[in-house]
């Protein structure tokens, strides 16, 4: 299977902190983006081939570092104030899974910090050895490329840091510097190029999307006898749904999409998806580029205006929800042309939960009686966003919805859920096959917790609300003896339990009203 050891699980319910080892995860890092991909993202492309650096790379890297620290208070403050107390050292799932010293959050930060100190601080300029400052060399740059692509920007370290230092901020800055010297990451940058060119991460063109939603309408009709609509590019709908493109075809994502459609159908709220904004995910955050993130976000604004909607709702997606909740208003606002009675944007779970509370949905919990559920808090939802109108709503609302549609729910151990949740191991631009080793090892703490509740509470399924989590789990949990179908979308559970009362969709097309039989 693999030329590395898959960590063993104990099922004890707690993570064993490994002894520090050096160089376990040393390597070249993920595939590097070719000049064309860099050009599409407005990054420098004056390097001849993959693996080569731009001319004057050192000056340009330092110039970019100076630029970033002058524009991001987080970066400037975090580079200065770490006291190396070690509070974060055992908190990263990649460190726990790999034991590589440079996967300790503070050590990962120090890769950048030691260069910052050398060139930008008094102590580092005159006493480099004393404060652990080093010159920027090609080796250091290669180390950045490797280890800053072993961070999923999950923010768990920042929860436990006495100063809130967030390694994600440092990783993002490092990746942006790398993008300016010829070391862009192929996976992220190629995908962002597809969003600019086609509209979504997977590069699904409009006609393919129309085909897909048509197929889905047929499937649901075959299943329920009711023509539930999956509207695409329909102007004048109340809600614009922006969902990760994986929802259009991947398992179990697509079952979530069916769930959203059934909820909209039952509530009678008109909705549409958009070929322009057929992607909730925003990989601009992964590469730390404000401009890229903004350019991706502006598509959502464009779609909302074009389709004349009144509300924007986001589908199940973790980093996407962080960008949507925390940054969309900043990047693509103001949204004063939308209905101000609702938050902009809303999460599909906020939408569904409000309708469950209002009693709009008819639910039969026993439809999910074949399962004992647990819930994986997606890292960026848990620590970088909110749902509802009070802090921590992002923990309660998904669980409330699950409990409203399932009889059997058990939480995983307390230090692995809520804001202490472990990342799935594939977030932050790591969900690519050239990073399988780190993905397999990084999932360990989550797998450990899941195994614990499987053994002790008979948990059979884990629900997730993130396209990346779902993809990572279905692919990597089998390394630990779980099966792919143990991962479900939360709206898949809703879909199972919902009993459709409305016979004809409020968005039924005139030509197909009841004349299916001719």
């Amino acid at each position, binding site marked *: 299977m693999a030329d590395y050891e898959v960590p063993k699980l104990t099922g004890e319910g707690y993570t064993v902190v490994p002894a*520090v080892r050096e160089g376990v995860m040393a390597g070249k890092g993920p595939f590097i983006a070719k000049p064309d991909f860099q050009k599409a993202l*407005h990054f420098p492309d004056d390097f001849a081939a993959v693996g080569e650096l731009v001319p004057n790379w050192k000056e340009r890297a330092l110039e970019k570092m100076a630029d970033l620290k002058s*524009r991001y*208070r*987080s970066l400037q403050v975090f580079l200065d104030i770490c006291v190396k*107390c070690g509070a974060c050292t055992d908190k990263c799932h990649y460190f726990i899974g790999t034991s590589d*010293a440079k996967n300790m959050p503070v050590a990962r930060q120090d890769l950048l910090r030691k260069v910052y100190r050398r060139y930008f601080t008094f102590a580092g300029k005159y006493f480099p050895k004393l404060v652990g400052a080093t010159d920027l060399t090609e080796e250091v740059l290669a180390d950045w490329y490797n280890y800053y692509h072993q961070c999923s920007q999950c923010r768990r370290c*920042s929860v436990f840091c006495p100063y809130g230092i967030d390694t994600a901020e440092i990783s993002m800055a490092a990746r942006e510097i790398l993008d300016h010297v010829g070391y862009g990451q192929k996976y992220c940058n190629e995908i962002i190029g597809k969003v600019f060119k086609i509209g979504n991460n997977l590069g699904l063109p409009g006609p393919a999307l129309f085909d897909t939603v048509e197929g889905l309408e047929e499937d649901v009709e075959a299943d329920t006898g009711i023509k539930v609509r999956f509207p695409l590019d329909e102007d004048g709908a109340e809600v614009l749904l922006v969902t990760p493109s994986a929802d259009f075809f991947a398992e179990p994502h697509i079952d979530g999409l069916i769930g959203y459609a059934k909820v909209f159908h039952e509530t009678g709220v008109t909705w549409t998806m958009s070929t322009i904004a057929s992607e909730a995910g925003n990989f601009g955050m992964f590469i730390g580029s404000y401009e890229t993130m903004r350019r991706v976000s502006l598509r959502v604004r464009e779609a909302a205006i074009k389709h004349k909607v009144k509300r924007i709702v986001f589908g199940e997606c973790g980093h996407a929800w962080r960008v949507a909740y925390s940054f969309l*208003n900043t990047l693509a606002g103001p949204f004063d042309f939308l209905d101000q009675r609702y938050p902009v944007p809303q999460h599909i779970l906020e939408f569904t939960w409000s309708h469950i509370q209002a009693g709009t949905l008819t639910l039969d919990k026993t439809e999910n009686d074949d399962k004992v559920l647990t819930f994986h808090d997606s890292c960026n939802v848990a620590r970088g966003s909110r749902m509802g109108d009070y802090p921590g709503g992002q923990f309660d609302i998904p669980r409330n919805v699950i409990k409203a549609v399932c009889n059997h729910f058990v939480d995983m151990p307390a230090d692995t859920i809520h804001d202490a949740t472990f990342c799935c191991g594939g977030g932050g631009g790591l969900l690519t096959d050239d990073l399988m080793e780190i993905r397999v090892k990084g999932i360990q703490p989550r797998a450990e917790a899941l195994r614990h509740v499987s053994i002790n509470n008979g948990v059979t399924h884990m629900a997730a609300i993130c396209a990346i989590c779902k993809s990572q789990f279905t692919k990597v949990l089998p390394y630990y003896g779980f099966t792919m179908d143990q991962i479900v979308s939360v709206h898949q559970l809703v879909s199972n339990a919902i009993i459709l009362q409305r016979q004809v969709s409020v968005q039924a097309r005139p030509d197909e009203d009841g004349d299916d039989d001719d």
Partner: protein
Amino acid sequence: MTFVSILYGLLFWAATLILVGGVAVKVRQYWNTPAPLKIPTTPAPITQGGVVWRMFREVAFFESLFRSNKTLWLFAFLFHMSLWLVLIRHARYFVSMNELLVFMQPFGRYAGITMVLGLAGLWARRFVVDRVRYISAPSDHLMLALLISIGVTGLMMSFVSHTDVTQIKGFFHGLMVFHWQPLPSDPLALVHLFLVALLMIIFPISKLLHAPGVFFSPTRNQVDNPREKRHVSAWALELERQGKLYRDELNK
């Protein structure tokens, strides 16, 4: 007036200038650097008052550190809180005695012991815990050595060999009003004071910046209200104003 007194007088003037000026420069830098995005570590307070309370819990109780690691919290808390008591006790060298200061003297006296104990615990971790050993640079060890030396020399003056505190008070009062007074030539006092001056000088160029810096940490000091209130930095707003996607396309 001895040569040493003059030397120390100049040293403390310089150290004070560097400490105050250096910290002011850094605080100004943090203040002026924009925070373009809302990045509080959530769940985060949704009101400004809530943020003040969160920050208070962080700096008064080390809440996040407590969640992280109880042993580390114990040593860190012991050291920092003891340091406050010790600093309050030392206020008598700069202001005239009042009832509160008199009351605080014994607390500050024994806090010196707990302060050194806390520091010793923190230093021990740098040797004992392999993860912390790996991340420690020479300066991290030296910083603890410096603080412990300050603590130990101070304790020795309290408990072993008393120095002429009245004369020391006169010396510092003299520095403050530009009317120089002699310093006792007690070697313990001289070492203690030299190390304190060193600490003051190092403060603005070292990780001790965590003290003012924590208040500027966006993950802790931001209100979680991005949907309710639009947050845009000046440099980002310029992109909007000029209708551009990239900063290098902007007209200056």
